C-alpha cells in the first residue's frame, strides 16, 4: 500500500480512506411508487484505503452499478455520504467534483459505447485534461504517454475508436481515466464484455497499474473469480444490501453468508471432476431458485432462497457482524457450511 495523498488525508492523524461510502441509500423514481418499493441501494457502507482495491460483487439487481454511479455523482443518493480523501462530495455537482477532486475517475463496462465514435482517441483523452487547465501541447503529450502506459502506441491519438478491438478500447478507456492522474478509479464491470484472453490482458494491466501507481480501485463485477484476482477486499451485495464483506481470500474461500456461498458454489470451474463435486455440494445445500417470490419488507432479503432461514430471518434484518475476518449479515453465519 502506498502513502495516502491529498491535503485532507495528510492533516489527519490516521490516513483518511481514499474513498468512503457511508449509509448510502439510493431510490429510483419519485412519488408514492418509489417510496413503497425497496431501494436499489439500502444502507451500504464501505471504505477503500489508499492503494487498496475493493471488489463489489453481486448479481443483476444487487445495486452494485448503482453504487458506482452514486459514487461518481451520476445518480444522486437519497441518503448517505460519499467522501474522497475525507472530503464530502455527496452533494457536489459533477463540474465541481472534477474541479475540486480531480482524482476520481471511471472505466465502464462496454468498450464500444464508452468511447465516442465521432472523436479521435486524442480528443477523448485530452478532454478531461483541458478542463483541468492543462495546455494543449502538454495535454496531448500526456495523452500519448497515457496510451503508452496501457500498452498502446502513442500515435493512436489520431485514430478513431472503431479502429480498435474491444480489448484495445478498454485500454483506451483506462488510459482516459489515468491521464488525470487520479487516486481513485471506479471500474464498472471493466472486463465482463471481453473474451477470456483479452480479459486476462486487461486484468493484468489493471493489477500492474494499481501496484505501480498506488491507485485505489472500486472494482464492480459479477464474477467472484475476477474479483478475487484483483481485489484485496470484497463486498457482496444482494438486493441492495451488503451481505458480507471481508478480505477477498476469506470471502472467496470461506464464505460466512449463505448467499456468498451460493454465489461461489454456482460459479463453475473448468475442471470437470472438481466441478462435479462442487455441483453436488451446491445441490445438496438446497438453495432456492432465483426466480422465487420477492422477500418481505423486513428481515433478510435472501430468506426466500436460503436453506438456513428461520423465523428470525423473516422478522429481523440481520446486522453486519464480524466472524473471523469477515463481516456478515446473517443470523446463522456460524451454521454456514463450507464448500
Amino acid at each position, binding site marked *: 500500500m502506498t502513502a495516502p495523498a491529498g491535503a485532507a488525508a495528510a492533516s489527519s492523524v490516521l490516513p483518511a480512506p481514499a474513498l468512503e461510502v457511508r449509509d448510502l441509500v439510493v431510490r429510483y423514481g419519485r412519488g408514492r411508487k418509489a417510496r413503497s418499493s425497496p431501494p436499489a441501494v439500502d444502507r451500504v457502507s464501505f471504505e477503500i484505503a489508499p492503494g487498496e482495491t475493493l471488489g463489489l460483487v453481486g448479481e443483476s439487481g444487487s445495486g452494485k452499478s448503482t453504487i458506482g454511479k452514486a459514487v461518481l455523482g451520476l445518480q444522486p443518493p437519497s441518503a448517505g455520504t460519499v467522501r474522497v480523501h475525507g472530503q464530502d462530495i455527496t452533494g457536489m455537482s459533477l463540474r465541481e467534483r472534477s474541479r475540486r477532486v480531480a482524482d476520481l475517475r471511471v472505466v465502464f463496462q462496454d468498450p464500444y459505447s464508452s468511447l465516442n465514435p465521432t472523436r479521435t482517441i486524442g480528443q477523448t483523452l485530452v478532454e478531461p485534461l483541458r478542463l483541468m487547465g492543462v495546455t494543449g501541447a502538454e495535454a496531448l503529450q500526456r495523452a500519448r504517454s497515457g496510451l503508452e502506459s496501457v500498452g498502446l502506441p502513442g500515435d493512436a491519438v489520431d485514430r478513431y475508436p*472503431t479502429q480498435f478491438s474491444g480489448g484495445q478500447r478498454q485500454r483506451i478507456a483506462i488510459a482516459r481515466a489515468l491521464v488525470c492522474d487520479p487516486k481513485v478509479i471506479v471500474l464498472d464491470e471493466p472486463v465482463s464484455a471481453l473474451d477470456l484472453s483479452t480479459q486476462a490482458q486487461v486484468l*493484468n494491466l489493471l493489477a500492474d497499474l494499481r501496484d505501480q501507481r498506488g491507485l485505489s480501485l472500486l472494482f464492480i463485477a459479477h464474477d467472484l473469480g475476477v474479483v478475487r484476482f484483483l481485489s484485496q477486499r470484497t463486498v457482496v451485495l444482494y438486493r441492495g444490501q451488503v451481505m458480507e464483506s471481508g478480505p477477498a481470500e476469506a470471502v472467496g474461500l470461506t464464505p460466512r453468508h449463505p448467499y456468498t456461498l451460493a454465489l461461489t458454489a454456482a460459479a*463453475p470451474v473448468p475442471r470437470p471432476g472438481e466441478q462435479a463435486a462442487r455441483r453436488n455440494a451446491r445441490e445438496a445445500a438446497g438453495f432456492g431458485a432465483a426466480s422465487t417470490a420477492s422477500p418481505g419488507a423486513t428481515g433478510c432479503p435472501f430468506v426466500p432462497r436460503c436453506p438456513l432461514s428461520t423465523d428470525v430471518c423473516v422478522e429481523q434484518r440481520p446486522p453486519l457482524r464480524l466472524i473471523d475476518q469477515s463481516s456478515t449479515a446473517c443470523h446463522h453465519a456460524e451454521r454456514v457450511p463450507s464448500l
Partner: protein
Amino acid sequence: MSALPLDAAANTDLDAGRPGRPGRPGRRLPYFLRRPGGVFGATWLAFVVLASLTAPWWVPYGVAEQDLSNRLALPSADHWLGTDPLGRDLLSRIFSAGAEPLLAAGITVLVAFGIGLTMALIAAERGPRVERVSSRLAEVLLALPSTILLLAVIGAIGVRIFIVMAVLGVMISAGVYRVMLGVAKSVRQRLYVDAARVNGLSSLRVNLVHVLPSMGTVVAVQAAQLYGIGLLIVAGLAFLGFGPAEPQPSWGFMIQDASSYVFSNPWLLVPTGVVLALTVVAANELADAIASRGSVARTTVRRRRSPARVGATGSADPRPADPGAVLDVRDLHISVDDGPALVTGVSFALQPGRVLGLVGESGCGKTMTARSLMGLLPDGVSVSGGSIRWQGRELVGVSEKDLSAVRGRDIAMISQEPMVALDPMFSVAYQLTQPIRRFRGVGRGEARQIAAQLLRQVGIVDGERVLKSYPHQLSGGMAQRVCIALALTGEPRLLIADEPTTALDVTVQAEILSLLRALVRDTGLSVVIVSHDLGVVADICDDVAVMYAGTVVEDGTAAAVLDEPAHPYTQALLAANPHVADGEPVPTRLASIDGTVPPPGEWPTGCRFASRCLFAQEQCTQRFPSVPAHGSGSVLCTRVEELSRADVTWMSAPTTGPAGHETAPATAQPAPTVGVSR
C-alpha cells in the same frame, strides 16, 4: 398539403458503423454519396438550389415577360419547357420561383429542429419529470390540425410565407421532438456521455460535443425528410393562392394555373409538377441514403438458400463415419456467399444422450456451426461444403420445407438471450400451445395441459401464472426455462443451446445447467452447447470441441480436454481463466494471449493460431493434419507431441507482459488527422 408525418425514424441506424466499420470516411466521398439515391438526391438538390438562387442571372426570359401570341406553347428551341397561359417562359418561371420554397422549407426545418431538438436534448438530460411535461405538450401540439391552424395564421398575419413557415416549424417541432427524444435518450445512455460527465464537462458541452454528433445521422435524415415535407407545404399554400403575388411565379400557383388547362394543354402540368416532385424525391432519397449508413449493402430478407456444394471438397477428415452417432458432421464449410469462409473443415459426431460443447472465443465460428445444424444461417451465409447427417439423413442441401419438418420436431434450439427469444406480442400460453398442437395434433385444451406440464418439467412451479404472462413480465431465468419448455414441445432428440446461460446470473446459470442435465438424464436428449465459458463446459459437457478461427483445434471428452489440454490454445484459455481451484492461491498474474482472433478472410495458412502462439515456429505456417488425441478425439497442432514430450505448457510459459501488440482490425486506410485541441 398534408402535413406528412416524420417517417418512422425507428429504422434509422443509430449506431452508425459501430464496431469494425471505419469511423471516418476520410478523403473519400461521404458514404451517402456512394449510393445511387444519394448521388441523385444530392446532385438534384444542389442543382435546383444553385439554379434557383442564381436564376436572375441566367434565365433566358424575365418572369413577367409575356408573349400573348405564343401562349401555352409546347417545348421549343426558344422555350425549352414551353410557355404558360400568358406566353411566359416556363423554364425561367420555374427556376425563378424556386428560391422562395427552397428557403421557406429551410426555415421550417430550422425552426422545427431549433425547438424540437433543443427540447429533446433538455428533456433527455433533465429526466422523467421534465420529459413528462414536454412530451405531453408535444402530444397536444401533434394532435392539432396544423393546416387549418396555418390558415388561421395566414388570416391573422397575411401571406408572409417565411413567418407562416416558421409557425409551421413550431407545430412540426413536436414531431421532431418526439423522434429526437428517443434518439437523445438512447445516446445519453451511452457510457461515453457518462464518462464525459464524470470528467466534469458542462451540460452544454456534453450535449454539443458528445450527444449531438452522435445524433447526426438521425438529424440529417429527419431534416432531409422534413425539408421535402416543407417544400410540399409551401407549394400547397401557393396552390391555394397563398404565395408570392403574380407576376412573381410560385410552384404551387403554377400548378394551380395549369390545372385550369388540364384538358386543353395538359403539358402545362408537367414541368412544374416534375421539378417540384423531383426536388421532394431528391430530399427523400438523400434522407434514405444518409439513413443507409451501417447497411451499405442492404441484405434482403430472402429465405432462399444457395445449394451447398455437398461433398465438393474432399474430406480431410481421417476418421471413419460413426455409425452410432445421431449427428455426424463431416468437413463442414460455411462461408459468406461470394465472400470469405467462416468455418472450415469442422467435423464432430454426437452420440445419443450426450452433451457436446463447442467452445472458443468470439469470432471462432461456434455459433455459425451450431446454427448450420438446423439450416438457420443468417442471410448471405451458407454451408459451402461438407455434410451434416442427422440420424443418417443428409441435411445439407435439402429444401427449406424438408428442413422445417426437422426443426422443432427432431432438433430444437435455445438461444443466448431468452428475454428476446420469445415473441413479446403473444402470451406464453399461446407460444407454447401453438407448436404443441402442431407437433402433437391435440386440441386447444389438451395443448394447454401439456404446456403446463412442460413448464413443471422445466422447474416452473406456478405454471398457470406463467402461462398467462407475456415475455416482458418474466425474469431472465424464467424466460430461459420457458424457452426450454418451448424447445421440448416437439419432443426433439437433439437440443442446440447457443450460449444458453451467458446472459444470466451465475446462480441462475447453475439452475439452468442443472435443468439441462436433468433433461438429458431423463429423456436421453442429445445436446450441442455453444459456450465461451470453460466452466460451463466442465459442468455439463461429455465431449468438447475447441474452436479457433473457424476450425476445431482440439476435441475429445470434456474430462480429457480440460484436464489435459494438448493444444496451446486450449491451454492458454485455461490459463487465462481467473477461477482458481479451491484452496489454491490466486495468481498475481494471469496467462494471456497476445492479439485477437484474426477475422475471416485473414486467416494464415498453416496453424491459424500461430501468430499468437508462444510456441509457434516456422513449421506452423505450413499445412498439417490433425492428429488423434484423447482417445477418440484429435488435436490440430504440429508440435503437439514435441511439446508434450518436453512437458511444456502455456501455464508454465512466461507471459509477455501487459503491452500486448494487438493488431487492430480494419485499419486499412489511414485515419484523417483531426487536430487534437491545441
